[in-house]
Protein backbone atom coordinates (compact mmCIF):
# COMPACT_ATOMS: atom_id res chain seq x y z
CA UNK A 1 0.00 0.00 0.00
CA UNK A 2 2.97 2.30 0.37
CA UNK A 3 3.71 2.32 -3.33
CA UNK A 4 3.89 5.60 -5.18
CA UNK A 5 3.02 5.28 -8.85
CA UNK A 6 4.14 7.90 -11.38
CA UNK A 7 1.50 9.56 -13.52
CA UNK A 8 1.47 12.37 -16.08
CA UNK A 9 -0.96 15.26 -15.66
CA UNK A 10 -3.43 15.40 -18.55
CA UNK A 11 -6.00 17.95 -17.41
CA UNK A 12 -7.03 19.91 -14.33
CA UNK A 13 -10.69 19.35 -13.48
CA UNK A 14 -12.93 22.11 -12.18
CA UNK A 15 -15.05 21.82 -9.01
CA UNK A 16 -14.32 19.81 -5.85
CA UNK A 17 -12.19 22.61 -4.42
CA UNK A 18 -10.15 22.55 -7.67
CA UNK A 19 -8.24 19.59 -6.26
CA UNK A 20 -8.92 17.04 -8.99
CA UNK A 21 -6.84 16.31 -12.05
CA UNK A 22 -6.81 13.70 -14.77
CA UNK A 23 -3.55 11.76 -14.99
CA UNK A 24 -2.20 9.10 -17.29
CA UNK A 25 -1.09 6.13 -15.20
CA UNK A 26 0.58 3.44 -17.29
CA UNK A 27 -1.61 4.36 -20.26
CA UNK A 28 -4.87 4.56 -18.32
CA UNK A 29 -6.50 7.89 -17.46
CA UNK A 30 -7.51 8.22 -13.79
CA UNK A 31 -8.74 11.05 -11.59
CA UNK A 32 -6.49 11.95 -8.69
CA UNK A 33 -6.41 14.63 -6.01
CA UNK A 34 -3.61 17.21 -6.29
CA UNK A 35 -4.55 19.18 -3.16
CA UNK A 36 -1.35 18.30 -1.31
CA UNK A 37 0.68 20.02 -4.03
CA UNK A 38 -1.30 23.26 -4.07
CA UNK A 39 1.81 25.36 -3.44
CA UNK A 40 3.76 23.59 -6.20
CA UNK A 41 3.67 24.92 -9.75
CA UNK A 42 1.94 22.13 -11.68
CA UNK A 43 1.25 22.13 -15.40
CA UNK A 44 -0.29 19.69 -17.84
CA UNK A 45 2.48 17.32 -18.93
CA UNK A 46 4.20 17.32 -15.52
CA UNK A 47 4.81 14.05 -13.70
CA UNK A 48 3.73 13.32 -10.13
CA UNK A 49 4.09 10.38 -7.75
CA UNK A 50 0.64 9.14 -6.71
CA UNK A 51 -0.11 7.47 -3.39
CA UNK A 52 -3.65 6.26 -2.51
CA UNK A 53 -5.18 8.64 -5.07
CA UNK A 54 -3.21 11.74 -4.05
CA UNK A 55 -0.28 13.36 -5.82
CA UNK A 56 2.46 13.44 -3.19
CA UNK A 57 5.34 14.97 -5.10
CA UNK A 58 6.24 16.40 -8.47
CA UNK A 59 9.07 14.58 -10.21
CA UNK A 60 10.89 14.99 -13.50
CA UNK A 61 10.33 12.71 -16.49
CA UNK A 62 13.50 10.72 -15.80
CA UNK A 63 12.52 10.00 -12.20
CA UNK A 64 9.00 9.01 -13.31
CA UNK A 65 10.42 6.58 -15.90
CA UNK A 66 12.87 5.06 -13.41
CA UNK A 67 10.22 4.72 -10.71
CA UNK A 68 7.94 2.95 -13.18
CA UNK A 69 10.69 0.60 -14.39
CA UNK A 70 11.38 -0.25 -10.76
CA UNK A 71 7.69 -0.90 -10.01
CA UNK A 72 7.30 -3.11 -13.09
CA UNK A 73 10.00 -5.39 -11.74
CA UNK A 74 8.13 -5.74 -8.44
CA UNK A 75 5.67 -8.21 -9.93
CA UNK A 76 2.55 -9.08 -7.95
CA UNK A 77 2.63 -6.14 -5.54
CA UNK A 78 2.57 -3.71 -8.49
CA UNK A 79 -0.06 -5.74 -10.38
CA UNK A 80 -2.28 -5.60 -7.28
CA UNK A 81 -1.73 -1.86 -6.95
CA UNK A 82 -2.61 -1.23 -10.62
CA UNK A 83 -5.72 -3.37 -10.21
CA UNK A 84 -6.71 -1.26 -7.19
CA UNK A 85 -6.07 1.94 -9.17
CA UNK A 86 -8.22 0.61 -12.02
CA UNK A 87 -11.12 -0.03 -9.65
CA UNK A 88 -10.79 3.36 -8.01
CA UNK A 89 -13.18 6.15 -8.91
CA UNK A 90 -12.30 9.37 -7.19
CA UNK A 91 -14.73 12.30 -7.32
Amino acid at each position, binding site marked *: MCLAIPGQLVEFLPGNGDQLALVDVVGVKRKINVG*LLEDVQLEVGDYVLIHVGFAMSKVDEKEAAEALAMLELMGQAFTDELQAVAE*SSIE
Partner: protein
Amino acid sequence: MRFVDEFRDAALAEVLGREITALCEPGRHYKVMEVCGGHTHTIYRYGVQDHLPEAIELVHGPGCPVCVIPMGRVDDGIAIAEREDVVLTCFGDMMRVPGGRGSFLDANARGADIRMVYSPLDALRIARQNPDRQIVFYAIGFETTAPSTALTVLRAAAERIENFSVFCNHVTIIPAIKAILDSPDLRLDAFLGPGHVSTVIGCRPYEWISRDFGMPLVCAGFEPLDLLQSVYMIMKQFAEGRAEVENQYGRVVQYDGNPVALKVLSDVFTLRPFFEWRGLGSIAHSALQLSPTYARYDAELRYELPGVRVADPKACQCGEVLKGVLKPWECKVFGTACTPETPIGTCMVSSEGACAAYYNYGQYAKQRLSLEVLQ
Protein backbone atom coordinates in the same frame (compact mmCIF):
# COMPACT_ATOMS: atom_id res chain seq x y z
CA MET B 1 22.43 -13.07 -9.18
CA ARG B 2 19.09 -11.33 -9.65
CA PHE B 3 20.42 -7.91 -8.87
CA VAL B 4 23.04 -8.12 -11.57
CA ASP B 5 20.71 -9.70 -14.12
CA GLU B 6 17.87 -7.27 -13.70
CA PHE B 7 19.45 -4.14 -12.49
CA ARG B 8 20.33 -1.83 -15.33
CA ASP B 9 23.32 -0.29 -13.70
CA ALA B 10 25.09 -3.28 -12.25
CA ALA B 11 28.51 -1.80 -12.96
CA LEU B 12 27.77 1.24 -10.79
CA ALA B 13 26.48 -1.07 -8.07
CA GLU B 14 29.77 -2.95 -8.15
CA VAL B 15 31.75 0.28 -7.88
CA LEU B 16 29.62 1.47 -4.96
CA GLY B 17 29.99 -1.91 -3.25
CA ARG B 18 33.77 -1.67 -3.53
CA GLU B 19 33.85 1.92 -2.25
CA ILE B 20 31.62 0.96 0.69
CA THR B 21 33.95 -1.94 1.51
CA ALA B 22 36.95 0.40 1.41
CA LEU B 23 35.27 2.68 3.98
CA CYS B 24 34.71 -0.10 6.53
CA GLU B 25 36.95 0.05 9.57
CA PRO B 26 38.66 -3.34 9.91
CA GLY B 27 37.10 -5.50 12.63
CA ARG B 28 34.05 -3.28 13.04
CA HIS B 29 30.49 -4.50 12.45
CA TYR B 30 27.87 -1.98 11.33
CA LYS B 31 24.14 -2.43 11.92
CA VAL B 32 22.11 -0.17 9.66
CA MET B 33 18.33 -0.14 10.12
CA GLU B 34 16.12 0.57 7.14
CA VAL B 35 13.05 2.03 8.81
CA CYS B 36 10.73 1.71 5.82
CA GLY B 37 8.98 -1.44 4.64
CA GLY B 38 9.32 -0.29 1.03
CA HIS B 39 13.10 -0.40 1.49
CA THR B 40 12.85 -3.87 3.03
CA HIS B 41 10.99 -5.00 -0.08
CA THR B 42 13.67 -3.56 -2.39
CA ILE B 43 16.48 -5.07 -0.31
CA TYR B 44 15.11 -8.60 -0.61
CA ARG B 45 13.76 -8.20 -4.14
CA TYR B 46 17.13 -7.12 -5.52
CA GLY B 47 19.49 -8.80 -3.10
CA VAL B 48 20.97 -5.47 -1.99
CA GLN B 49 22.65 -7.16 0.99
CA ASP B 50 24.67 -9.26 -1.49
CA HIS B 51 26.38 -6.09 -2.70
CA LEU B 52 27.49 -5.08 0.76
CA PRO B 53 30.49 -6.35 2.69
CA GLU B 54 29.81 -8.76 5.55
CA ALA B 55 30.71 -6.01 8.02
CA ILE B 56 27.49 -4.18 7.13
CA GLU B 57 24.24 -5.75 8.28
CA LEU B 58 20.91 -4.34 7.15
CA VAL B 59 18.34 -4.57 9.94
CA HIS B 60 14.64 -4.28 9.14
CA GLY B 61 12.62 -1.69 11.01
CA PRO B 62 8.98 -1.07 11.97
CA GLY B 63 7.91 0.95 8.91
CA CYS B 64 5.18 -1.33 7.59
CA PRO B 65 1.77 0.21 8.33
CA VAL B 66 -0.11 -3.07 8.24
CA CYS B 67 2.45 -4.88 10.38
CA VAL B 68 2.14 -2.59 13.39
CA ILE B 69 -1.67 -2.76 13.75
CA PRO B 70 -2.39 -4.68 16.99
CA MET B 71 -4.96 -7.48 17.06
CA GLY B 72 -7.33 -5.52 19.26
CA ARG B 73 -7.68 -2.79 16.63
CA VAL B 74 -8.57 -5.42 14.00
CA ASP B 75 -11.28 -6.67 16.35
CA ASP B 76 -12.53 -3.09 16.82
CA GLY B 77 -12.84 -2.76 13.04
CA ILE B 78 -14.81 -6.00 12.88
CA ALA B 79 -17.12 -4.82 15.67
CA ILE B 80 -17.87 -1.66 13.66
CA ALA B 81 -18.40 -3.67 10.46
CA GLU B 82 -20.83 -6.04 12.17
CA ARG B 83 -23.33 -3.22 12.63
CA GLU B 84 -26.25 -3.53 10.23
CA ASP B 85 -25.97 -0.01 8.85
CA VAL B 86 -22.19 0.06 8.37
CA VAL B 87 -19.94 -0.51 5.37
CA LEU B 88 -16.31 -0.66 6.51
CA THR B 89 -13.74 0.29 3.88
CA CYS B 90 -9.99 -0.33 3.99
CA PHE B 91 -6.87 -0.77 1.87
CA GLY B 92 -6.46 -4.25 0.37
CA ASP B 93 -3.45 -5.05 2.56
CA MET B 94 -5.65 -4.86 5.64
CA MET B 95 -8.08 -7.61 4.62
CA ARG B 96 -5.96 -10.57 5.74
CA VAL B 97 -4.47 -9.11 8.93
CA PRO B 98 -5.30 -11.51 11.73
CA GLY B 99 -7.14 -10.20 14.79
CA GLY B 100 -8.38 -12.04 17.85
CA ARG B 101 -11.61 -12.84 15.99
CA GLY B 102 -10.04 -13.59 12.62
CA SER B 103 -9.43 -11.21 9.74
CA PHE B 104 -11.71 -8.85 7.83
CA LEU B 105 -12.09 -11.60 5.21
CA ASP B 106 -13.35 -13.93 7.95
CA ALA B 107 -15.76 -11.21 9.13
CA ASN B 108 -17.11 -10.86 5.58
CA ALA B 109 -17.68 -14.62 5.47
CA ARG B 110 -19.81 -14.17 8.62
CA GLY B 111 -21.88 -11.48 6.89
CA ALA B 112 -20.07 -8.20 7.51
CA ASP B 113 -19.68 -5.70 4.64
CA ILE B 114 -15.99 -4.81 4.46
CA ARG B 115 -14.81 -3.45 1.12
CA MET B 116 -11.37 -2.81 -0.27
CA VAL B 117 -10.70 0.69 -1.58
CA TYR B 118 -7.67 2.19 -3.29
CA SER B 119 -8.10 5.63 -1.79
CA PRO B 120 -9.94 7.20 1.18
CA LEU B 121 -11.66 9.27 -1.53
CA ASP B 122 -13.21 6.02 -2.83
CA ALA B 123 -14.69 5.53 0.65
CA LEU B 124 -16.10 9.06 0.49
CA ARG B 125 -17.62 8.31 -2.93
CA ILE B 126 -19.31 5.21 -1.49
CA ALA B 127 -20.71 7.45 1.26
CA ARG B 128 -22.11 9.88 -1.34
CA GLN B 129 -23.68 7.00 -3.26
CA ASN B 130 -25.19 5.33 -0.18
CA PRO B 131 -26.76 8.04 1.98
CA ASP B 132 -28.71 5.38 3.95
CA ARG B 133 -25.53 3.53 5.02
CA GLN B 134 -22.73 4.58 7.35
CA ILE B 135 -19.37 4.40 5.56
CA VAL B 136 -16.38 4.00 7.86
CA PHE B 137 -12.82 4.26 6.52
CA TYR B 138 -10.34 2.08 8.43
CA ALA B 139 -7.33 4.40 8.14
CA ILE B 140 -3.82 3.02 8.45
CA GLY B 141 -0.41 4.32 7.48
CA PHE B 142 2.43 6.58 8.50
CA GLU B 143 2.83 10.24 7.58
CA THR B 144 2.89 9.20 3.90
CA THR B 145 -0.78 8.27 4.01
CA ALA B 146 -2.23 10.37 6.84
CA PRO B 147 -2.45 13.62 4.77
CA SER B 148 -4.69 11.77 2.28
CA THR B 149 -7.09 10.83 5.06
CA ALA B 150 -6.92 14.41 6.36
CA LEU B 151 -7.84 15.91 2.97
CA THR B 152 -10.67 13.38 2.66
CA VAL B 153 -12.08 14.47 6.03
CA LEU B 154 -11.82 18.10 4.89
CA ARG B 155 -13.75 17.21 1.72
CA ALA B 156 -16.42 15.41 3.76
CA ALA B 157 -16.75 18.51 5.93
CA ALA B 158 -16.88 20.85 2.91
CA GLU B 159 -19.62 18.75 1.29
CA ARG B 160 -21.37 18.08 4.64
CA ILE B 161 -21.28 14.33 4.10
CA GLU B 162 -22.31 13.08 7.52
CA ASN B 163 -22.60 9.33 6.86
CA PHE B 164 -18.80 9.11 6.62
CA SER B 165 -16.34 8.56 9.46
CA VAL B 166 -12.76 7.46 10.01
CA PHE B 167 -11.45 4.75 12.32
CA CYS B 168 -8.02 6.24 12.69
CA ASN B 169 -4.92 4.08 13.07
CA HIS B 170 -2.43 6.51 11.59
CA VAL B 171 0.95 6.26 13.30
CA THR B 172 4.00 8.50 13.32
CA ILE B 173 7.51 7.30 12.62
CA ILE B 174 9.63 9.39 14.98
CA PRO B 175 8.31 7.93 18.30
CA ALA B 176 8.75 4.40 16.89
CA ILE B 177 12.40 5.13 16.06
CA LYS B 178 12.82 6.54 19.57
CA ALA B 179 11.27 3.41 21.10
CA ILE B 180 13.73 1.25 19.15
CA LEU B 181 16.69 3.40 20.21
CA ASP B 182 15.53 3.28 23.84
CA SER B 183 15.11 -0.50 23.75
CA PRO B 184 18.01 -2.45 25.28
CA ASP B 185 17.55 -5.31 22.78
CA LEU B 186 19.42 -3.86 19.86
CA ARG B 187 22.48 -1.74 19.24
CA LEU B 188 22.27 0.12 15.95
CA ASP B 189 24.90 2.22 14.21
CA ALA B 190 22.92 4.16 11.61
CA PHE B 191 19.58 4.54 9.84
CA LEU B 192 18.35 4.56 6.27
CA GLY B 193 15.55 7.14 6.58
CA PRO B 194 12.17 6.43 4.96
CA GLY B 195 11.66 7.92 1.51
CA HIS B 196 7.95 8.63 1.20
CA VAL B 197 7.38 9.56 4.86
CA SER B 198 10.12 12.14 4.44
CA THR B 199 8.40 13.76 1.45
CA VAL B 200 5.80 14.82 4.04
CA ILE B 201 7.80 15.46 7.23
CA GLY B 202 11.12 16.40 5.61
CA CYS B 203 14.48 15.62 7.19
CA ARG B 204 14.53 17.97 10.17
CA PRO B 205 12.50 15.69 12.50
CA TYR B 206 15.40 13.18 12.41
CA GLU B 207 18.11 15.62 13.49
CA TRP B 208 17.92 14.54 17.17
CA ILE B 209 19.07 11.06 16.11
CA SER B 210 22.41 12.34 14.88
CA ARG B 211 22.64 15.06 17.54
CA ASP B 212 21.69 13.01 20.63
CA PHE B 213 22.69 9.50 19.59
CA GLY B 214 25.63 10.36 17.33
CA MET B 215 24.18 8.23 14.52
CA PRO B 216 24.10 9.02 10.80
CA LEU B 217 20.71 8.96 9.06
CA VAL B 218 20.35 9.18 5.30
CA CYS B 219 16.90 9.54 3.71
CA ALA B 220 16.95 7.06 0.87
CA GLY B 221 15.13 6.44 -2.40
CA PHE B 222 13.62 3.09 -3.36
CA GLU B 223 15.83 1.80 -6.12
CA PRO B 224 18.65 -0.62 -5.31
CA LEU B 225 21.20 2.00 -6.36
CA ASP B 226 19.56 4.54 -4.06
CA LEU B 227 20.00 2.19 -1.13
CA LEU B 228 23.63 1.41 -1.99
CA GLN B 229 24.40 5.09 -2.44
CA SER B 230 22.74 5.86 0.91
CA VAL B 231 24.82 3.18 2.65
CA TYR B 232 27.88 4.75 1.00
CA MET B 233 26.87 8.17 2.42
CA ILE B 234 26.50 6.61 5.87
CA MET B 235 29.90 4.92 5.67
CA LYS B 236 31.50 8.15 4.48
CA GLN B 237 30.09 9.86 7.58
CA PHE B 238 31.68 7.19 9.79
CA ALA B 239 34.99 7.49 7.95
CA GLU B 240 35.01 11.26 8.39
CA GLY B 241 33.82 11.14 12.00
CA ARG B 242 30.51 12.86 11.21
CA ALA B 243 26.97 12.04 12.38
CA GLU B 244 24.44 13.97 10.32
CA VAL B 245 21.06 13.79 8.63
CA GLU B 246 21.57 13.70 4.87
CA ASN B 247 19.14 13.42 1.99
CA GLN B 248 20.02 10.99 -0.80
CA TYR B 249 16.46 11.16 -2.24
CA GLY B 250 16.63 14.90 -3.01
CA ARG B 251 14.90 14.43 -6.37
CA VAL B 252 11.69 13.70 -4.41
CA VAL B 253 12.25 14.71 -0.75
CA GLN B 254 12.60 18.36 0.26
CA TYR B 255 14.58 18.92 3.47
CA ASP B 256 11.61 20.79 5.00
CA GLY B 257 8.99 18.33 3.75
CA ASN B 258 5.61 19.29 2.29
CA PRO B 259 4.20 22.30 4.19
CA VAL B 260 0.67 21.83 2.77
CA ALA B 261 0.56 18.20 3.93
CA LEU B 262 1.91 19.16 7.37
CA LYS B 263 -0.74 21.90 7.68
CA VAL B 264 -3.66 19.57 6.89
CA LEU B 265 -2.23 17.00 9.32
CA SER B 266 -2.13 19.54 12.14
CA ASP B 267 -5.60 20.89 11.23
CA VAL B 268 -7.36 17.53 11.13
CA PHE B 269 -5.46 15.40 13.67
CA THR B 270 -4.07 15.58 17.19
CA LEU B 271 -1.60 13.22 18.82
CA ARG B 272 -3.00 10.43 20.96
CA PRO B 273 -1.50 10.22 24.45
CA PHE B 274 -0.66 6.56 23.78
CA PHE B 275 -1.09 3.99 21.02
CA GLU B 276 -0.36 0.30 21.12
CA TRP B 277 1.88 -1.00 18.31
CA ARG B 278 1.97 -4.68 17.51
CA GLY B 279 5.24 -5.97 18.87
CA LEU B 280 6.50 -2.63 20.15
CA GLY B 281 3.87 -2.14 22.87
CA SER B 282 2.36 1.16 23.94
CA ILE B 283 4.27 4.21 22.68
CA ALA B 284 3.48 7.74 23.87
CA HIS B 285 2.40 10.33 21.26
CA SER B 286 2.95 7.86 18.45
CA ALA B 287 -0.42 7.95 16.68
CA LEU B 288 -3.06 10.35 15.40
CA GLN B 289 -6.71 10.84 16.21
CA LEU B 290 -9.18 13.34 14.79
CA SER B 291 -8.88 16.80 16.34
CA PRO B 292 -11.84 18.23 18.34
CA THR B 293 -12.86 20.31 15.26
CA TYR B 294 -13.40 17.13 13.22
CA ALA B 295 -14.43 14.82 16.08
CA ARG B 296 -17.81 14.27 14.41
CA TYR B 297 -15.98 12.20 11.78
CA ASP B 298 -14.31 10.02 14.42
CA ALA B 299 -15.69 6.46 14.27
CA GLU B 300 -14.30 5.79 17.75
CA LEU B 301 -16.68 8.40 19.15
CA ARG B 302 -19.57 7.39 16.86
CA TYR B 303 -19.55 3.69 17.77
CA GLU B 304 -19.11 1.66 20.90
CA LEU B 305 -15.98 -0.45 20.54
CA PRO B 306 -14.64 -3.46 22.41
CA GLY B 307 -11.30 -1.61 22.74
CA VAL B 308 -9.77 -4.76 24.21
CA ARG B 309 -6.06 -5.41 24.11
CA VAL B 310 -5.51 -8.84 22.52
CA ALA B 311 -2.16 -10.55 23.02
CA ASP B 312 -0.35 -11.78 19.90
CA PRO B 313 -0.30 -15.54 19.35
CA LYS B 314 2.49 -17.09 21.42
CA ALA B 315 4.23 -18.60 18.41
CA CYS B 316 4.38 -15.25 16.59
CA GLN B 317 7.60 -13.26 16.86
CA CYS B 318 6.58 -10.26 14.74
CA GLY B 319 7.49 -7.96 17.62
CA GLU B 320 11.12 -9.04 17.51
CA VAL B 321 11.13 -8.84 13.71
CA LEU B 322 9.64 -5.31 13.78
CA LYS B 323 12.30 -4.19 16.26
CA GLY B 324 15.04 -5.71 14.11
CA VAL B 325 16.05 -8.12 16.88
CA LEU B 326 15.16 -11.22 14.84
CA LYS B 327 15.58 -11.84 11.14
CA PRO B 328 12.42 -13.26 9.50
CA TRP B 329 13.90 -16.75 9.06
CA GLU B 330 14.83 -16.87 12.74
CA CYS B 331 11.16 -16.86 13.77
CA LYS B 332 9.98 -20.29 14.90
CA VAL B 333 6.93 -20.40 12.63
CA PHE B 334 8.42 -18.66 9.56
CA GLY B 335 7.53 -20.49 6.36
CA THR B 336 5.98 -23.42 8.20
CA ALA B 337 2.89 -22.48 10.19
CA CYS B 338 3.12 -18.86 9.02
CA THR B 339 3.05 -18.18 5.26
CA PRO B 340 1.57 -15.39 3.09
CA GLU B 341 -1.44 -17.66 2.43
CA THR B 342 -2.07 -18.37 6.12
CA PRO B 343 -0.30 -15.62 8.06
CA ILE B 344 -0.07 -15.86 11.83
CA GLY B 345 1.68 -12.54 12.17
CA THR B 346 1.30 -9.25 10.33
CA CYS B 347 4.88 -9.21 8.96
CA MET B 348 3.82 -12.08 6.67
CA VAL B 349 0.69 -10.27 5.38
CA SER B 350 1.88 -7.12 3.64
CA SER B 351 4.38 -7.10 0.78
CA GLU B 352 6.20 -4.45 2.84
CA GLY B 353 6.47 -6.80 5.81
CA ALA B 354 9.95 -8.22 6.30
CA CYS B 355 8.68 -11.81 6.53
CA ALA B 356 6.59 -11.67 3.34
CA ALA B 357 9.42 -9.95 1.45
CA TYR B 358 11.89 -12.56 2.63
CA TYR B 359 9.44 -15.41 1.97
CA ASN B 360 8.92 -14.23 -1.62
CA TYR B 361 12.44 -13.19 -2.55
CA GLY B 362 14.82 -14.30 0.15
CA GLN B 363 15.80 -17.70 -1.14
CA TYR B 364 19.04 -16.31 -2.56
CA ALA B 365 20.07 -14.88 0.76
CA LYS B 366 19.07 -18.14 2.43
CA GLN B 367 21.20 -20.20 0.04
CA ARG B 368 24.15 -17.94 0.67
CA LEU B 369 23.64 -18.25 4.41
CA SER B 370 23.52 -22.04 4.31
CA LEU B 371 26.69 -22.07 2.19
CA GLU B 372 28.41 -19.94 4.80
CA VAL B 373 27.33 -22.38 7.49
CA LEU B 374 28.68 -25.31 5.46
CA GLN B 375 32.00 -23.59 4.94
